[in-house]
């Protein structure tokens, strides 16, 4: 393993923990699973640091790892154990009422996004929240750009209907 890649990966993990956790929460809809996803991602990233290409974006690489662990290991186990899926519209809520006044609008947006299917929530997070280009998002998702576009279109279409018929 190249020592420089390992050092780069190790140094880059800490600043990305919060964003990785948020991605894990958007995928799984469960905070405890998000915790586990971040831990497993850190471990896997260190094990595979030799595969990281110096000079590329580490956060994108970490997103790919987290996603792969979710899809290949945790999601199926959650289903197998009967945990099923948390209704993400319930999971993507802000804890506590402490800042309810300032967060009320944010909470509404999170509830709406939480009501979308997993693939659409993920596309919204990567492109509209994390600011990835379509191409970058497609790389994280290991899918064609057209898939990113159609997921975003489906998400916007669903959210657009909510605005047209509020409360429904």
């Amino acid at each position, binding site marked *: 393993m190249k020592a420089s890649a390992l050092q780069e990966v190790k140094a880059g993990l800490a600043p990305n923990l919060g*964003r990785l956790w948020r991605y894990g929460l958007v995928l799984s809809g469960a905070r405890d*699973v998000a915790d586990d996803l971040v831990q497993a991602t850190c471990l896997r990233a260190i*094990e595979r640091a030799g595969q990281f290409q110096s000079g590329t974006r580490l956060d994108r690489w970490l997103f790919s790892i987290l996603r792969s662990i979710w899809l290949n290991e945790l999601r199926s186990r959650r289903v197998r154990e009967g945990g099923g899926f948390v209704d993400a519209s319930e999971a993507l809520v802000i804890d506590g009422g402490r800042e309810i006044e300032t967060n009320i609008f944010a909470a509404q947006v999170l509830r709406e*996004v939480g009501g979308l299917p997993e693939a659409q929530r993920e596309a919204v997070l990567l492109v509209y929240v994390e600011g990835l280009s379509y191409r970058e998002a497609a790389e994280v998702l290991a899918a064609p750009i057209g898939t990113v576009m159609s997921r975003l279109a489906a998400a916007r279409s669903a959210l657009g209907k909510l605005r047209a018929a509020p409360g429904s």
Partner: protein
Amino acid sequence: MNGDDEDARLVAYIDGELDENARRALEARLSVDTDLRARLHRLQDGGRPFAPAFQALLDEAPVQRLQASLAAIMAAEQREAAPRRGGLALSASRLAAAAAILMFCAGFAIGRYAPLWSARSPEIAAPASDKDEDWRQAVAEYMGLYTSDTFATEPASQEKELAALGAKLGLALTPERVALADLQFKGAQIFSFQGAALGQLGYVDPTSGPVLFCIIRNFEPDAAKTAEKRGDFAVVSWASTGRGYMLIGKLPPDQMAELANSLEKRF
């Protein structure tokens, strides 16, 4: 072009992802096609201030806990790195096992959700359910990974290391206060167990190998010294002033008791 493709193209237009030619072509159609304009408006209505809304979730990320967890993984990797310098390849499974054991000390997976590595590390038994008892069992389990080589490198500054650990534990730790006769002090590490700071002072005995003196600030009730065997290890533990103390190693029981007596007088 079907409706879904059309929507995808319109979203790419909204997001500024169309190239110049495609954008011009679409704008030309929008200027004459009212249905297409209605579709565009509906998709525009599907926009939200996503980034600021999701900032609220970022603010809620348990960053401190995740950082402690990362520190445990890094510590495990460091332990693996030492033999690697001798030409051995990094063993992912060994790293995972070491990290899993450190996790037990850090207490992240306990009582909530089986750790990710448990399926691959059946040798790591879950600790007993009694909370005050758990941390001693956890230490006894991961102690199995230690060798004299674990402490092969000298720490940069023992004073600094001890001061940092002391701050976590609410104790003034100095090299003199933690020195043990005939044992070489090799350094201090900070762990966390179920939210309580867990300090580990490492020593090497020339004949029996590593000895650990652990202090946890867990506010457990005072308890007199008790000696026991855990696996191959001799253990002496006690509690006072809201802290649990534990000495573990492979020295004969009478020597362990002597060392524990000497430590108890200082804490």
